[in-house]
């Protein structure tokens, strides 16, 4: 069918038209001038460092284009089929399994075959380094998340999403809870204790406050991911093959995470504010939640969205300890026309020196493990969060993390469980029924 179509002379003429009227297709190329288009999301590419790099290299123009995580994934897939304008693409670790599997690594440049040029030699990145040479700077299991099953290196890790509890000292005080971070951490050695504390907090709220939707935690559903990531296996178990063995029906960790979350949902401690919605933002400003399970990268969100709450936040340990959420890899799509410039930027941007700056200004916790015993990191305190030693807190959390095998449809399965918990939260379905529906929905993903 398609062959007979392309043979059609009329269409040929159309193509010729499209090509010859290249105004709409050809990128402008001045001499030596390079424009790096980065498809990204959230705060992965930091404007401050972007400016710094452009100052270092006036010939390079960096254009980050933000999208939401899922639409970005979609665009990445489409552009792999068609080619596209991006030079660097960010993908979140839950999607890493997807890109590491099958033919899909071909969508990205194998970074083992790239070599840094001399352009950043003065800025601390020696020339001639391939991905193999910079590997040693990074947390090994984070690095692996960018290595495809055919061994090509498709992405370099940016941050690691160490998870802690951000809490409002003023609201805790009002509810008669301790405010000191050590004492607060001791309130919840387990998730059950965390829920109990929440109930204590909620019982102190007035009826009007309850009616206006205030609660202890922004979204009780967020507990699921936290508990899940405290295990060592999620939905896939490594079995030596690319795809891994599917264990979403049998892994006890899932049931544990589910049950804990359902308990939290039913205990009424949540404000039912979906994260990254506008209502969440308003709620943050209005003190609608006293705690947020905050990955390091979320600290910057809180600062930006609720600047007036400065000094009212502090950070305590996650119940049980050691949590992780998110984290991103930066990759170069194989269709990029500026691979060298893109690789030079990547290696500079993701080098330990820069990642330390990113952490200090934006709170994203570096996956460059060489920094983890660096005093500059460990001694870093954040004024916004009542001078909490965030460097030390998150380092401690990250070091506890166990590597988890992220499978092909990880993200999809995660969001299916999320939807299942949403049903329980909104009381549209009881826990058991909803769980069964989650499993059958996941089954469907693997058919057709």
């Amino acid at each position, binding site marked *: *069918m398609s062959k007979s179509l392309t043979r059609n002379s009329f269409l040929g003429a159309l193509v010729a038209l499209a090509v010859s009227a290249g105004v709409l297709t050809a990128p402008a190329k001045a001499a030596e001038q390079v424009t790096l288009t980065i498809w990204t999301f959230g705060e992965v590419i930091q404007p401050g460092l972007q400016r710094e790099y452009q100052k270092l290299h006036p010939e390079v123009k960096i254009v980050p284009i933000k999208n939401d995580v899922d639409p970005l994934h979609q665009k990445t897939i489409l552009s792999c089929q068609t080619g596209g304008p991006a030079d660097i693409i960010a993908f979140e670790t839950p999607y890493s399994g997807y890109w590491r599997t099958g033919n899909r690594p071909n969508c990205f440049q194998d970074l083992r075959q790239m070599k840094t040029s001399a352009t950043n030699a003065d800025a601390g990145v020696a020339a001639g380094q391939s991905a193999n040479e910079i590997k040693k700077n990074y947390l090994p299991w984070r690095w692996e998340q960018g290595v495809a099953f055919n061994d090509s290196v498709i992405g370099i890790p940016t941050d690691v999403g160490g998870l802690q509890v951000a809490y409002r000292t003023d609201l805790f005080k009002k509810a008669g809870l301790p405010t000191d971070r050590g004492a607060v951490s001791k309130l919840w050695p387990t998730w059950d204790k965390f829920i109990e504390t929440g109930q204590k907090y909620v019982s102190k709220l007035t009826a009007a406050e309850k009616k206006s939707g205030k609660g202890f935690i922004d979204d009780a559903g967020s507990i699921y991911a936290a508990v899940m990531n405290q295990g060592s296996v999620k939905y896939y178990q490594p079995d030596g093959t690319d795809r891994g063995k599917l264990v979403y029906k049998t892994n006890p960790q899932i049931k544990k995470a589910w049950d804990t979350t359902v308990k939290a949902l039913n205990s009424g401690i949540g404000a039912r504010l979906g994260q990254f919605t506008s209502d969440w933002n308003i709620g943050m400003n209005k003190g609608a939640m006293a705690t947020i399970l905050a990955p390091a990268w979320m600290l910057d969100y809180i600062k930006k969205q609720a600047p007036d709450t400065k000094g009212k936040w502090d950070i305590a340990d996650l119940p049980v300890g050691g949590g992780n959420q998110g984290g991103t890899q930066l990759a170069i799509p194989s269709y990029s026309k500026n691979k060298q410039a893109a690789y030079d930027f990547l290696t500079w941007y993701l080098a330990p020196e820069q990642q330390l700056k990113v952490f200090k200004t934006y709170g994203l916790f570096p996956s460059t493990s060489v920094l983890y015993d660096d005093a500059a990191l460990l001694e870093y305190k954040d004024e916004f969060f009542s001078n909490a030693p965030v460097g030390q807190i998150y380092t401690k959390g990250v070091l506890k993390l166990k590597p988890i095998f992220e499978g092909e449809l990880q993200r999809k399965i995660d969001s299916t469980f999320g939807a299942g918990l949403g049903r329980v939260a909104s009381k549209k379905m009881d826990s058991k029924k909803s769980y069964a529906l989650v499993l059958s929905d996941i089954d469907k993903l693997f058919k057709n």
Partner: protein
Amino acid sequence: MTLIEEGKGRPKAPLTPWKKKKEKKQLPGVASLDGRWGYPAIAPFFLIFLVFGVAPVLYSIYIAFFKWDPLGESEFNGINNFIFLLQDSDFWIALRNTFSIWALSTFPQLVVAISLAAILRNKRLKGKSFWRTILLVPNITSIIAITIVFQQLFGRDYGLINGLLTLIPGVDNIDFIEGIIPSHIQIATMISWRWVGYNTLIFLASMLAIPDELYESASVDGASKWQQFKYVTLPSLKNTITFVLIVGTIGGLQVFAEPQQLNAEGGSTKQFLTLTLFLYNQAFLNNKYGYAAAIGIAITVIVLIISAINFVITRRISGEGSR
């Protein structure tokens, strides 16, 4: 726009071709004009139409028989996609939602549009042209902009509508996303808001075609306003109502942007997953091109069935009709 526009964004022509045929047999054309010019006249249209309008449809029938992963291998899959579709609870949920949203947006709209048209028909009404023009304003706005506004108005905690509702004692905030019917109401409101003025004008046009004498004589006979409406106005709107229903159905089956902007997956219980959103998600979220094509074919079959039902009903009505 062939395959890509929102089905509703079209001007309405004197449609109902089957009726036309009945009245005129066929268009006579002008015998003294050289008919051979017809071919070059329709050729450019037909070429583009076949390539971008018809070929994709045929191609999608082909794809529907494959397991077609854009970044993986594609293999022949027989009719498995269709079997799976019939077993997929999501399909039936989407079907239910689509019809519920369609009904919630169509019937209240009909009532409001006909009432408004009845008011606007009045020859003594002041500012006629102003009212008519105002009615069309919502129709020109983009769906995305409007979803942003309505989503905020319908917000659970801080939305204006809930703000008003909670002024009533004893009423709690309604979650216009999580509930099945509330979410359908939200989407139906967006659709109705856009289209009610447009449909009012359509009804107004056919009401203006009703001769004044009919009302006069009814009035002389002592018929009340309501009786006039029931026995004079309504019967002459039959065709227009059928027409609005057909167009509304085709449009209703294509509802996509509104639910997608509320939640890309169509809600946690898929409570507002519509057929088109279902198709889109299978194609572009799950990368199941073959399955998506099968869904497209299912939607087509549904449209054909509805059109057939409409056709039969219209026939019967016009058969019974007084003319």
